[in-house]
C-alpha cells in the first residue's frame, strides 16, 4: 500500500489532468491516448484549475462525492467537504484522505470545498 500511494502522490497532492493539444479537451484521471482524437491526439500533463462547479453529487458513507466541472472543462469525481447543491462553486483543497492504520502512513490529497459566501451560520 505504501509504494502504491507513493507513486500517486504527484497526481493526488496537486491534481494533474491530461490535455489534448489537438482537440483542446482536458481529461481526468489522466489518459495516455485522447479518447476523441485517438492517434491524432497530442496528450500533455496539465495542472487543473483551482475552482469549479458541482454538476452532480451523492452522499456515500456520510461523505459528499461530487462530479465537479473545472473552469477549463475538466470533469472529475471528487470528495467535497461541506454542504453543496448542484451548481455550487467549489475550490481545490489539500486534505487528509485517511490513514493506513494508527501507526501507519497518513494519506493526503486533493478534495474540494464550497467557496464560502455564507455569513456566520449554524452547521
Amino acid at each position, binding site marked *: 500500500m505504501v509504494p502504491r500511494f507513493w507513486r500517486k*502522490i*504527484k497526481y493526488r*497532492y*496537486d491534481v494533474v489532468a491530461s490535455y489534448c493539444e489537438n482537440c483542446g479537451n482536458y481529461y481526468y484521471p489522466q489518459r495516455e491516448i485522447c479518447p476523441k482524437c485517438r492517434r491524432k491526439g497530442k496528450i500533455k500533463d496539465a495542472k487543473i484549475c483551482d475552482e469549479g462547479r458541482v454538476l452532480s453529487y451523492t452522499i456515500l458513507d456520510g461523505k459528499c462525492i461530487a462530479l465537479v466541472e473545472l473552469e477549463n472543462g475538466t470533469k472529475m469525481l471528487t470528495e467535497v*467537504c*461541506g454542504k453543496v447543491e448542484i451548481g455550487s462553486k467549489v475550490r481545490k*483543497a*489539500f*486534505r*487528509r*484522505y485517511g490513514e493506513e492504520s494508527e501507526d501507519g502512513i*497518513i494519506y*493526503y490529497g486533493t*478534495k474540494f470545498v464550497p467557496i*464560502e459566501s*455564507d*455569513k*456566520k*451560520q*449554524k*452547521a
Partner: protein
Amino acid sequence: MIGIVSYGTYIPRFRIRVDEIARIWNEDANAIKQSLGIFEKSVPDVDEDTATMAVEASREALARAKIDPKKIGAIFVGSESHPYAVKPTATIVGEALGVGNYYFCADLEFACKAATAGIQICHAMVKSGMIDYGLAIGSDVAQAKPGDALEYAAGAGAVAILIGKDPIAVIEATVSYTSDTPDFWRRDLQPYPSHGGRFTGSPAYFRHIVNAVRKLMEDHGYTAKDFDYAVFHQPNAKFPQRVASMLGFSEEKIAEGLLVRVIGNTYSASSLMGLCSILDKAKPGQRILLASFGSGAGSDAFAIYVTEKILDFPRNAQVWEKAKNGVYIDYGLYLKNRRMIR
C-alpha cells in the same frame, strides 16, 4: 533589502464558543471570557491537520507572490502538532507546492515560536546568497485535554511567510532571547501538553518578550514611538495587552493584530497571524514590531518596515474576514472533528 515578499494565511472554518465548552464542564463562561479575553476559537475539519493547513496557507502565499514554486530554495515548518513524530511535515508541503526536489527542508520545533525561528533562518539564507526565496510556515492544531483550562484557547491555523529580496516589508532587525524555563511542555508519546500554572506568566512570557524587545530597541535605536503597530504572541488576550503596556505600546497599536478573541491561540501561527492582519492594512513607511514567544522558553523580536511594494500586492481575502466568517459547531461535533471520537 530582504524581508517578506509574500504571505498567506489559513483559518479552518469551524468555530466553537467558550460558552459551549463551559456548558459541558459546568463552568462560568462569563468569568472565563473575562479572564482570557477569548470568546470563540477555530476548529479544523475532521480531515485537516497541521500539514493540510500549512499547504493551504503556502498556496495562498505563492499565488500572491506570482513566482515559480521551483524558485523556493528552503521550506521550514514550525509546529508543536506535526502529524508525524518522525517524518517531516515540510516534505509534504514541498511536494504539494511542486517546488521540485532541490531545496533545504526541515521541521522546526520551539513551542509557539518555531515559525519565527524559520523566518530568521530564511532571512539569513537569503542574505548569504544560499537561496533566492525561503518559505517559513507556522501551523498548529493545538492539542488540549478535554476539561483542561487550555481547551478554551487551543485553536487551529496556519501562516506562510515567503522571505526574499525586494520585499513588501523589510526585516530591519531581529533579536532573540532564550533561557531554559519549564513553563509548558509535552513529553514524547504524550497526547496532551502540561503546564506550570502560574509559572507561565512572569518568568516565561513577560520576561522573554520584554527582554527580546528591549534589546532590539537598544541595539538598533528604536523606541515604542517608532512603531505604528505591535503584535505579540497571543495565548489569550490579556498577556499581549499587558506586555504591550509594559513596553510602552498603546491599546490602538495592538488592536489590529489581536485575533485571539475570535480564533483562540493558534500556537506557531499566533503572532504571525496577527502580523498578517496588520500587513493587510499597512501603508508604505509604517513600521511593525513583532515578538513571538515559545515556551521552554524564548522570544524572537523583529522590526519590520513596510515598503511601496505593498501597494500592488494582492491582500484579499483579509485575515479578519477569514477569522469572522466561521460556522459554529457544538461540543460533540468538536470532539469528532478533533478526532477524539470516531
